[in-house]
């Protein structure tokens, strides 16, 4: 019995000794692995600004321009016969810098009824640039080519050609992307096309 008690005491002492040594070594050599650490610092500063490119209502169809001129809803009627709306929305550049613009369709509903839908940019000097095409209910082009939007004060128009095979409602959500030439900095405005 006495022998067992002595053994337990010795064991306790050994555990104390080992634990103490570990703690001491831990404090003495915190980076025992030998790695070197450092940190770079990034300080982004973001300011709310008015965009220099804004949307304005067109003369064909019905367009609603939302606050700040950075998003819009465009309504037009799709008939059984082709209809052409030459000016549903205007894109205006108020800045002294030129930009490039394009349309990119990113979501939709009930477009199967659209036998023909073309959304394009147009302007008297630059001609027409087809951006989004739907034929027989399917996209044949979802993202258009870049189109020049010259420096202030420049205006470019969005035109739509429509034909449907019934009187339901279709929605196409499109980004108007505005790019700084020779860079990959761009803004995305949300345009919702409602075709009744």
């Amino acid at each position, binding site marked *: 019995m006495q022998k067992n008690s002595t053994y337990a005491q010795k064991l306790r002492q050994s555990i104390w000794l080992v634990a103490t040594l570990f703690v001491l070594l831990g404090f003495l050599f915190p980076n025992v692995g030998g790695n070197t650490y450092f940190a770079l610092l*990034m300080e982004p*500063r*973001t300011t*709310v600004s008015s965009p220099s490119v804004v949307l304005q209502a067109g003369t064909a169809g019905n367009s609603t321009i939302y606050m700040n001129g950075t998003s819009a809803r465009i309504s037009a009627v799709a008939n059984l016969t082709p209809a052409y709306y030459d000016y549903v929305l205007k894109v205006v550049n108020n800045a002294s810098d030129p930009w490039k613009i394009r349309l990119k369709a990113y979501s939709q509903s009930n477009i199967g009824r659209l036998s023909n839908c073309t959304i394009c940019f147009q302007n008297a000097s630059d001609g027409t640039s087809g951006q989004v095409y739907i034929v027989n209910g399917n996209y044949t082009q979802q993202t258009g080519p870049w189109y020049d939007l010259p420096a202030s004060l420049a205006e470019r128009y969005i035109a739509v050609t429509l034909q449907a095979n019934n009187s339901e409602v279709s929605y196409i959500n499109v980004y108007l992307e505005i790019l700084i030439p020779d860079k990959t900095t761009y803004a995305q405005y949300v345009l919702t096309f409602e075709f009744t």
Partner: protein
Amino acid sequence: MRKLKIIKDIRLKKSTKFLILLLTSILVGTANAAIFYSLTMQPQVTVSTPVIKFDSAPDEPSGSTVNDAWCCLTASSYPNATLTYEKAVYLNNTDGVNSHSFRLRYVSITPTNTTADVANWDSIKFLVYNSSGYVFSLDFIVSGNNWTLSPSSGQTSYYSIPASTVWWIRLETLSPATATEGKVCNIQIAVDVQ
């Protein structure tokens, strides 16, 4: 002699004795090391470029400053429109032999939580890309008058950037339609490098 006997008669627990012994040993060991000899260390600290450093990228916003270990990006945020700086700043591993791991870690942001000015932003995102595409991100999303971080810990995992390789940070900003022009958000993010 009588005094010594009194000291010997003091009864101490074994653990107390052991602790006294340990502290005495440390004291003696330290004192001995100081007495026996001294080593001389002559560190030479040279100003040098960190192995992973910031570099200017094509979409660096105008008015920004990019140094090796520090950068200040002066970006804009448009109401109701997403503004993307595809290549806002490069992260360049200049080590020609070894890969290094790094992460993004939130340090501070103003306006601070619970202040009304926070509602002038919807989100500010820092997405890390390499030549194969998206790698990871640190996002600041607004909910009411508070910033919500993603990852919620405020720091990403460590990711390994290969030797002699350049990755970049894509900056995305979005403000609500009701945002007030001229409001400023300052963020500090540390790029921890191993």
